[in-house]
């Protein structure tokens, strides 16, 4: 049931606060498939919006979305079969992998939303009462916390390495940070800061928005063709108090100016009542 690629955000490009993003992530984790052993029977499959689940036969395991499994568990209508990675030995292996200094990446054994899924299952078992089907639930919880701490430390070291080796240098090549197998929660924790850092790096390197002109080293190769266009980018280009840069920089021949003025006068004679301000450039 490992889900390696995150699903598309339900809210599209709606800007969400970090709290909303994490809530959204928890909501989307509910779509993960999980096995349950129902204590009731229902011969007909249930037609849901996301798909069909069932039929349910008491004592026979079946695969349902996590949200349904949690709901049935809270009502003591089913027992959850924990995913294969929610096991003490597997988590110890993951922790050993994360602590290994030779391993720069994250362990592939955990799914993308492992934190949300594990919390949902543990809370559902606790709320539902009765014998908990999660053996050593407290140990699993502690191991998951240790793994989160070690992974966050690994992220911190990666960002430090990125800062010292790539971000503090001006480069035409965009720096890349490898987040393969990162968890959803870890991504939410560092996303805002890292995204802002990359954006600042682009601005300060001269490859960002309108206020960052290209590095002058490349400007000499562009020559005059790019010079005016690049020079035109700037705050005062939008100002109504300043004329266009081309007009100010390149003096126009007197004949051209006189020809334009004659054209304007002719047009005014035809138009009659139009404003004379057009003559003034």
């Amino acid at each position, binding site marked *: 049931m490992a889900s390696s690629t995150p699903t598309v955000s339900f809210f599209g490009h709606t800007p969400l606060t970090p709290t909303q993003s994490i809530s959204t992530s*928890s909501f989307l984790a509910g779509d993960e498939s999980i096995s349950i052993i129902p204590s009731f029977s229902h011969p007909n499959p249930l037609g849901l919006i996301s798909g069909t689940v069932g039929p349910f036969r008491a004592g026979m395991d079946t695969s349902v979305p996590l949200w349904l499994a949690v709901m049935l568990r809270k009502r003591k209508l089913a027992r959850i079969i924990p995913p294969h990675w929610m096991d003490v030995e597997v988590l110890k292996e993951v922790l050993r992998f994360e602590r290994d200094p030779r391993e720069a990446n994250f362990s592939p054994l955990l799914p993308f939303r492992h934190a949300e899924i594990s919390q949902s299952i543990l809370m559902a078992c606790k709320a539902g009462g009765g014998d908990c089907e999660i053996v050593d639930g407290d140990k699993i919880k502690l191991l998951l916390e240790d793994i989160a701490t070690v992974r966050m430390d690994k992220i911190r070291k990666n960002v430090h390495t990125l800062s010292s080796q790539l971000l503090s240098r001006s480069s035409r090549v965009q720096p890349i940070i490898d987040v393969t197998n990162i968890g959803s929660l870890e991504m939410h924790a560092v996303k805002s800061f890292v995204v802002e850092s990359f954006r600042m790096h682009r601005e300060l390197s001269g490859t960002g928005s309108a206020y960052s002109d290209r590095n002058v080293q490349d400007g000499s190769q562009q020559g005059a063709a790019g010079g005016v266009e690049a020079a035109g980018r700037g705050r005062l280009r939008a100002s109504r108090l300043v004329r266009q840069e081309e007009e100010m920089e390149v003096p126009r021949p007197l004949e051209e100016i006189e020809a334009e003025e004659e054209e304007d006068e002719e047009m005014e004679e035809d138009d009659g009542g139009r404003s004379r301000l057009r003559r003034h450039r």
Partner: protein
Amino acid sequence: MPSYYDIDTILAEEELIQIRPSFPFSHLSHLDPESSNRKRRRVDKENVGNSRTSIRGGGHVLEEGTKIKMPMWAVDRWVVLGFVRVTLPGIYGSKMKERLLADPVSVDLGSKNSHYFLTGLLLTSLLQRASQIAKRHRSRSASSPASQLSNLAQSLQLSLLTTMMGERLRRNFDWTLSALDAMEDDASGHVEKLSFLEKRMFERGVESSGAVVRWRDGGCGRIGGKGVMKGMAA
């Protein structure tokens, strides 16, 4: 980032830049605060023994090479067209660069200039534009120091990049991760030394890591439609 209507950009452009005219500017002697004193001293020397005290004639010109300080937004066009020679403010000078290279974390940019990086970014853009135009007019005006402007812009850009993306970024990131974990650690001492852009990064990082900590402690409630719809409407 910089925008015409952004208040922080407007504040960043208020930074005073020292300039020196490349030729005499008529009727702009009032830009030099010392010009009236100089005129008075000159008239006193000329009129020693005379009863006349009026100041007239030839006193309205801002002489070539006079050092004056003006806001960046006011001299933008002059610098681009090469009418003035620009000197970087002291906070971007060599002494400051040395201090930042030696110990970037301890430098209190918040008190020196809270818009340090934003002003530097705008200044770099200004110098690069001036350099590019100076190159185009190289054959027409031999006095345009295109290469000087270009070198100035590059060194400033590199200094800003090294300062912001180096040790200060790493320390800022560490504080965002630990600001909410250890209640006894007070981040205010760190935040006071940050510039505006660094503070913004810090606040966003703290908001994110804080949201994760709150989720771990209390889970998450129902997703309210009101908050999301409000965000979509905005």
